[in-house]
């Protein structure tokens, strides 16, 4: 998490993670429900602006360009040219015709995807995972599920470090990890084998640690060191997010 300390970044960072989750959800679903794709691109622009304001502009744009453009092109190709719903043709490429319905559908899907992507990215950049999990457990998520999310996030990098050491150990035993295709294929088992076996024993010991620290004892309601507050701003933002979702439903109902 980069430490850009302008007032907006601080404000966003201070928001309750649940508020942020709700906003991500409402924006994404709202744009999906709304019949036309343009609202989605509008929201996307707002997200980019927010990204720039909190010092993440470059990364958000990179995400949109690197992932968004290829996906949009691919979807335009698949849906625009070959969607069974195509009735109004807007262009002719010779080998296929481009349909308005499919094109609109492709644009909507891609905008929704990008909104989820950008909003989720911004949320992750401004929230500690432990805070999100603490907020979720405080509003009723099972302790064990909370543990799973955090432990997975922390254990995996540790295991990746272990793979490096194992690679060294096996190279020292004559395993060639950078030779021909056959040599590289042969190296897979000596590398993954120790990872799996030693991780299993590690897991057993970690279980011992959890047990002796009273993890999951019944009776007491668990408490958390991390404090998650719900401020007035949180409530206002939550209301706005829900209003957005409802208003996107209106054109469908009316």
């Amino acid at each position, binding site marked *: 998490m980069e430490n850009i300390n302008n007032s907006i970044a601080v404000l966003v960072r201070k928001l309750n993670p649940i508020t942020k989750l709700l906003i991500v959800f409402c924006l994404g679903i709202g744009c999906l429900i709304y019949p036309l794709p343009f609202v989605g691109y509008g929201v996307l622009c707002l997200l980019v602006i927010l990204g720039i304001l909190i010092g993440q502009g470059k990364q958000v744009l990179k995400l949109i360009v690197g992932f968004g453009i290829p996906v949009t092109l691919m979807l335009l190709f698949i849906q625009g040219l070959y969607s069974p719903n195509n009735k109004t043709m807007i262009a002719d490429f010779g080998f296929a015709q481009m349909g308005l319905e499919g094109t609109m559908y492709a644009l909507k899907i891609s905008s929704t995807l990008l909104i989820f992507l950008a909003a989720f990215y911004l949320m992750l950049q401004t929230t500690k995972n432990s805070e999100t999990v603490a907020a979720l457990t405080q509003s009723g998520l099972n302790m064990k599920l909370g543990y799973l999310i955090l432990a997975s996030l922390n254990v995996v990098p540790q295991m990746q470090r*272990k793979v490096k*050491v*194992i690679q*060294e*150990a*096996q*190279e*020292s*035993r*004559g*395993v*060639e*990890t*950078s*030779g021909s295709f056959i040599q590289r294929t042969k190296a897979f*088992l*000596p590398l993954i*084998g*120790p990872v*799996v*076996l*030693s991780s299993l*024993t590690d897991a057993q010991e970690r279980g011992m640690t959890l047990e002796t620290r009273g993890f999951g004892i019944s009776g007491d309601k668990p408490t958390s060191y991390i404090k998650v507050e719900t401020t007035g701003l949180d409530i206002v933002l939550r209301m706005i997010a829900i209003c957005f979702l409802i208003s996107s439903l209106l054109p469908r109902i009316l």
Partner: protein
Amino acid sequence: MKIEIKNLKHKYPSGGEALRGINTTFEGSNPVAIIGQNGAGKTTFAKHLNGLLRPTEGQILIDGESISDHTTAYWSKYIGYVFQNPDNQLFLETVRKEFEFGPKQQGLSRHEINDRIEFISDLVGLKHRLSTHPFDLNATEKKFCTIGSILMMDPKIIILDEPTCGQDVEGNQRLAKIINYLKNNDRLCITITHDMKFVVRNFDQIIVMSKGEILKSGNKYNVFSDVKTLLESHVAPPPITRVGQALRLKDISFSKEEFIDHFTRRIHQS
């Protein structure tokens, strides 16, 4: 085999200097111990000796050939490296298969492999455990399983990283036996260890490292009588030696026998 290390320097990608100009030569079969505090660069240095790490500056020559010319897997035929944690290399379901693994990579014949297993399993004390799963072995046996699997490749030089950690009495005795075997069979054993008792019992040459440099190199008498080096490298002499030094005995003693001898002389001279 001869390893020449010329002005070896190593910088981490983060910028920290791990090794700051090491010059030394390993030759012959007198076992060498590398000692020093954690973070002194012992393991970083050792990992250069079989090509796992590449020098940032300087060079390492093995019988005149630069180590950077080949991969670690190539050098593994000549230089064996036993890692500190056995769990990082064991992955087959029996000790026998672990032993066969290295020689099979080298393409040795079935017959030759079996002969070696016979001999090596006896040397490392796992003859009766060949069909056991390595993860069902106790800590001592597991360590010897990894040492055995490297010895099976019959390298000319073998590097042991912290072989004494977590060992019991029997394990230490067996390690001594293996080091002695290597010495008598013209194999060079380079060992990183914190256990000074073990060092003075088994090693002819000691290298003291501190802050990425070799502070002192010599036999145990030179090293453990050099108070300045010991202070600077935070190395404490073995218990017996400390008692001898506290009593101001004239000669430095490393074993119970030596101490008894020196102390007897002390009380009779007076």
